[in-house]
């Protein structure tokens, strides 16, 4: 009997890819905050240099907008490399055919994001910047799914809960967070020619969806604590994460508005009346960028919730859980053994 245990490279690369996409989103957010999208006027090179050969010290000690834009490109390349490693590992180690293709899909998504970023520069088009900004969190959510599908929870979870709406609610939550992201991107990337009425409508929609997301997360938090989901501790983690992120995100949202435009009712207290916004101030920039980055974390956490709920419920819909079914023969149903 062989005692050799193969190191799970699929798990390693999939988690690393997901983990590095988050700082990539953060730096990309900084690029938007500092309007640094055109800090490097060429692509795929940097000021005529090959991306990887641009002089290190010129980059580090160069203007801040160049620092973050070139850094964003380098980080993007690194993520691309990680996903290539993931694909190779998946093809060599992963028995699940769909998963192998999911990794290839992730590589395609990362490449498409890179191309969008490139076209934004080459065409100097802010609308593409907005699409690129929305695409980042989508890729992050996808990478989160790929990482979660390599986890032991995915592989060992058994379908044993009776559906009571959490599955649908999880999808509603994901759709709401994605819509909220798209609306936020409209505000972040507002074109100089955007009409005041158009912008105001977008702000109102953004606030409305903040309400929808809040209600959905509160409902999720409540549902996982009640029957039949209360017996599944695996559902608590994503629900709690969503709740914590929601609180953080609401605070960051108010902070973002204050850091950009002050409050319309600033004359109510001395502190607000005296507050002066620091344009491109360190904390202001971080606050605004954090709001956008936390939005992507909410999308990723919604994906996490879907994975957890799906693995505990979806199979049951099609095939009764053999492990808890006294009439079962003990053989795993196809839907479980295949995934």
């Amino acid at each position, binding site marked *: 009997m062989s005692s050799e245990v193969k190191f799970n490279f699929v798990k390693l690369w999939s988690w690393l890819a997901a983990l590095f996409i988050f700082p990539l989103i953060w730096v990309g957010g900084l690029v938007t905050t500092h*309007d640094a*999208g*055109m*800090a*490097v*006027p060429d692509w795929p090179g940097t*000021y*005529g240099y090959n991306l990887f050969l641009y002089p290190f010290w010129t980059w580090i000690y*160069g*203007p*801040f*907008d*160049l620092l973050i834009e070139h850094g964003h490109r380098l980080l993007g390349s690194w993520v691309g490399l990680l996903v290539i490693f993931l694909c190779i590992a998946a093809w060599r180690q992963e028995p699940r055919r769909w998963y192998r293709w999911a990794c290839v899909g992730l590589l395609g998504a990362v490449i*498409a994001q890179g*191309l*969008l970023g490139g*076209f934004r520069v080459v*065409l*100097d*088009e802010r*609308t*593409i910047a907005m699409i690129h900004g929305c695409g980042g969190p989508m890729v992050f959510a996808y990478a989160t799914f790929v990482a979660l599908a390599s986890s032991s929870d995915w592989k060992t979870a058994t379908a044993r809960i009776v559906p009571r709406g959490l599955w649908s609610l999880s999808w509603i939550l994901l759709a709401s967070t994605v819509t909220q992201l798209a609306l936020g991107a409209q505000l972040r990337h*507002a*074109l*100089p*020619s*955007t*009409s*005041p*009425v*158009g*912008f*105001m409508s977008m*702000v109102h929609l953004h606030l409305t969806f903040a309400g929808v997301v809040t209600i959905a997360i509160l409902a999720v938090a409540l549902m996982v604590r009640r029957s039949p989901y209360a017996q599944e501790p695996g559902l608590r983690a994503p629900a709690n994460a969503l709740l914590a992120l929601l609180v953080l995100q609401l605070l960051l949202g108010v902070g973002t508005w204050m850091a*950009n*435009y*002050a409050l*319309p009712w*600033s*004359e109510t*207290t*001395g502190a*607000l*009346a*005296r*507050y*002066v*916004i*620091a*344009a*491109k*101030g360190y904390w202001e920039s971080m606050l605004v960028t954090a709001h956008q980055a936390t939005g992507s974390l909410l999308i990723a956490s919604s994906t996490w919730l879907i994975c957890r709920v799906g693995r505990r419920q979806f199979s049951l819909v099609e095939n009764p859980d053999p492990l808890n079914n006294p009439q079962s023969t003990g053989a795993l149903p196809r839907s479980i053994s295949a995934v």
Partner: protein
Amino acid sequence: MLGVLLVGCGPSELDYRPNFLHAASLTRESADRNPTEIAEQAAALTESWFGSLDQPRWPSGQAEAVRMESVLRCAGPVGRLADKVERGVFRKHCVTCHGLSGDGLGPVSMLLEPYPRDFRRGTFKFKSSPVGKKPIREDLHRTLVEGIPGTAMPSFRALEESEEFANDVEDLVEYVQFLAIRGEVERRAIRLNLQEGIPLETSEPRMQEILSDVVGKWNSAPSEALSVPEPPAWFTTAPSDEESHLEWIQKGKLHFESELTACVKCHGKTGSGDGASQDYDEWTKDWTILAGIDPKHPKEWKEMKPYGALRPVLAKPRNFHWGAFHGGKSPKEIFKRIVLGIEGTPMPPVARAENSNPGLTDQELWELVYYVMHLEDRS
């Protein structure tokens, strides 16, 4: 696939937004005039002198009132070219509120209070020159560096203090002046046509006069700036005893409540900004009261919405208890606000006793400044 989807994308050509609102306010009574057409004609005429949004130029034959090198750096889209010099500084920092044309109609404008400034009247609030005169560079520079507390106008101090963006504020000052000059010439072209009946196609000689007049006002601004006297010794040193402090406060209070200054009318007896008098600023009156529109009646003012009008909002007198002075909180800046007033707002200048004219002496003015500054302590 992605390439196919992105065909047709590219930097879109942007233009200055014609001053539709001004044309509409002047043609309100005459149904036969088309404000949109007149505003567009005036914008085209202005473009022939000042160039386009991405390629501005200074009108030939006019004494240069702004540094065009700075204007060119601020105009156009944001980004760096092969020379690594950053361009589009105005779009990067200002356009979201002030709009591409400096008309105060940036995307976010409708949600702000107060509304972002429309530069095209050539009127600025916080300056060192008397009402009717243009601000000096230092005034605009101060607003950019200090920001305006409690409003969306940020402080750009961080730019000035960083080596790489050190010129941004100076360049923005030049560009704001450029937009103000351009905007005022455009307004006067509209008025020339609508009030004097001169067709814009044949207005060249009169427009040259207007151009020289507007440019001349900006160039002469430094010579008209107020030289603020140094505060008296008692003002700058801490009061030696409570009695002297209360004495100065008492004197300042008398001036504050006097009919000569009429501070109480707007700022209220306690300086909380709750006086009986309420009024709109000149930017609002320009297209409402002057055009025969009652700003209190939505039915009336809403007819101007398609031309870019925002809901009229009453000018808010400062609540001194917050200690938040929009034009700067240094004694000298407050002295200026009192002596010069705040142009474009209901805040009038307080008469200064000079050459046997009735008014407050400098000593009395400093007492008033002292009182206003110390109202904050009582909150």
